């Protein structure tokens, strides 16, 4: 049985420590969502797990082996990573992009085997991009483009796929389209998916496990209906909210408390406004 763990993992950029001696275990066969406020280190954690970022200390262990001790291509056969908003070179067609996904399976002489061809076609069909195969990636819409990149990662044929904010910059319809695709890959193909998600409601809906990252550590880790609570959201995102069952799925649905919607605003937010108006900061702004 495959396992993906971190042990004492410490990640940093220059001197700023982002993740501090973290022990984490990713469950195989599930969808895991990394959530947290901006700059909390969730993308850094994903980069650390995927070998895009070398740890300051500690290990990422895949099947009992440190990923930094594996040959690069061997790791790429087992673990794929789609970074945030990649840009394809001008004029590169979807088919060619997806074909690049076979790189870890190729050698100097064996550059395009029958198996490469079969798997690339399958990847395009799965990601539903076959009909744009001959179109340059840079002429596609945002959602089509993201699906083309996902198809490339699928052609890599790894059991584990990591994605950094796969829905960023997409319209709502495209966001759901991409998340549905990942859901199908998990349930129908048994892919283990680990992704950074901005939208907590998407995480609750699509993830089996949610990992909330805060200040270089894990603030909550578990099934959405168990760990996504009002107090957790306050702690991790610094915002008050109500949580109700999603009318469609029963998963937690986060309703943030804000000042919008005047007529229905709760007594609590009124009192917050009052406090603000009578605070010294407001007096300074008036002056």
């Amino acid at each position, binding site marked *: 049985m495959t396992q993906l763990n971190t042990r004492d993992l410490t990640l940093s950029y220059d001197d700023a420590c982002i993740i501090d001696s973290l022990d984490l275990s990713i469950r195989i066969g599930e969808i895991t969502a990394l959530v947290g406020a901006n700059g909390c280190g969730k993308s850094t954690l994903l980069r650390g797990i*995927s*070998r*895009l970022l070398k740890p300051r200390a500690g290990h990422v262990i895949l099947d009992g082996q440190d990923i930094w001790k594996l*040959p*690069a*291509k*061997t*790791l*790429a*056969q087992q673990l*794929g*990573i*789609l*970074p945030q908003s*990649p*840009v*394809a*070179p*001008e*004029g*590169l*067609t979807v*088919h*060619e*992009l997806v*074909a*690049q*996904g076979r*790189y*870890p399976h*190729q*050698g*100097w*002489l*064996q*550059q*395009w*085997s*029958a198996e*490469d*061809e079969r798997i690339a*076609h399958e990847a*395009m*069909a799965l990601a539903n991009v*076959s*009909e744009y*195969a*001959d179109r340059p990636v840079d002429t596609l819409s945002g959602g089509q483009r993201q699906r083309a*990149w996902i198809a*490339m*990662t699928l052609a*890599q044929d790894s059991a584990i796929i990591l994605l950094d904010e796969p829905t960023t910059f997409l319209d709502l319809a495209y966001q759901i389209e991409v998340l549905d695709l990942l859901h199908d890959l998990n349930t129908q193909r048994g892919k283990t998916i680990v992704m950074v998600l901005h939208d907590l409601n998407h995480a609750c809906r699509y993830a089996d496990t949610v990992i909330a990252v805060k200040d270089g550590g894990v603030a909550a880790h578990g099934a959405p209906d168990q760990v996504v609570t009002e107090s957790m959201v306050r702690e991790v995102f610094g915002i008050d909210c109500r949580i109700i069952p999603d009318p469609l799925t029963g998963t937690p649905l986060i309703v943030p408390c804000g000042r919008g919607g005047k007529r229905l605003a709760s007594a609590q937010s009124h009192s917050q406004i009052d406090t603000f108006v009578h605070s010294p900061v407001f007096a300074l702004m008036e002056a």
Partner: protein
Amino acid sequence: MAVKPTWITVRSRRLPFSFRLDRRVLPVALLLTAFTLTALVVSINYGQYNMSLLDVVQTLLGTNTAHPDYRNFALVVHTFRLPRILVAFLVGAALAAAGTIMQGITRNPLADPYLLGVSGGASLVAVAVIVWLDDVPLSILPFAAFAGGLIEAFAIYLLAWRAGSSTPIRLILIGIGLSSVVAALTTIMLLFGNINDVQQAYIWLTGSVYGRTWEHVRALGGWLLVFMPLAFVLARGLNMLNLGDEPAKGLGMRVERGRGVLLLISVALTAAAVAVSGTIGFVGLVAPHITRRLVGPSHEGLLPISALFGGALVVTADLIGRVVVAPSELPVGIVTAMIGAPYFAFLLIRSRNHA
């Protein structure tokens, strides 16, 4: 749904051997080869000594040995004209391949050995060798040029790659700045050198293939024989780098090592060209750019076709240089600059509008 690929696949049934090439590669290669051969024959034909195109072809093929003028033909074709034109072709191919690699590893369509000053760095050290050392054999120049190009490439790398990223414009500006510094240093060296050495250096610096001999063809050919196949083998690495560093790493490419090796190859190709012809500009910019439009961005096809295009370009530019001001001649570097500089301006404006 069946997808018809835009490439053709070559695959062995018994051996683990397969590769794919864009469909446009073969027709374009045939056209360019036909064009190059025509340019070669026309170029050999052009000059003081009059002979027919048929004579040229027959002399090249060695089928007219019985002709009464064969001795003259052979002297003119094989000794005087052919080596110069072969040098022009090889220089163009080397510069175009170097430019293609530089554009690939920087993900920057404006990168070029001349604009980035790699050619300039190569010339500086080569001039230093000519001026300071006595009786240098020709074969040492490529090594001197290689060292110079490497130092220059390293300096640009250090200055432009701050915080692991570089914008196209910054790269170009630093390259142009360093080129001026290097050009100034070259001039200083020429001012203080021995007059005979300086004259020799000047002739070499103008970016010309005038008077080049079989010795030059062999020197350059030897370097290309090593580095061209290496570049073709590593073309897939360029495709990876073009996706961006992180996707390439995710696909299991060792990005830093791959980029380093490719950079070394491109500097070696530039240095070999500079060592026999001086600095010929803009070939490494124009050839990859036009070729990308012809055969697409995959480097398995782009790299060899770009080299072929570069060779054809310099052979043609050399012919133009000899025709326009005959019986005198323009150095080929001036002709390529007259073609390339406006093209560069056009690209710069276009890239600014896109950004």
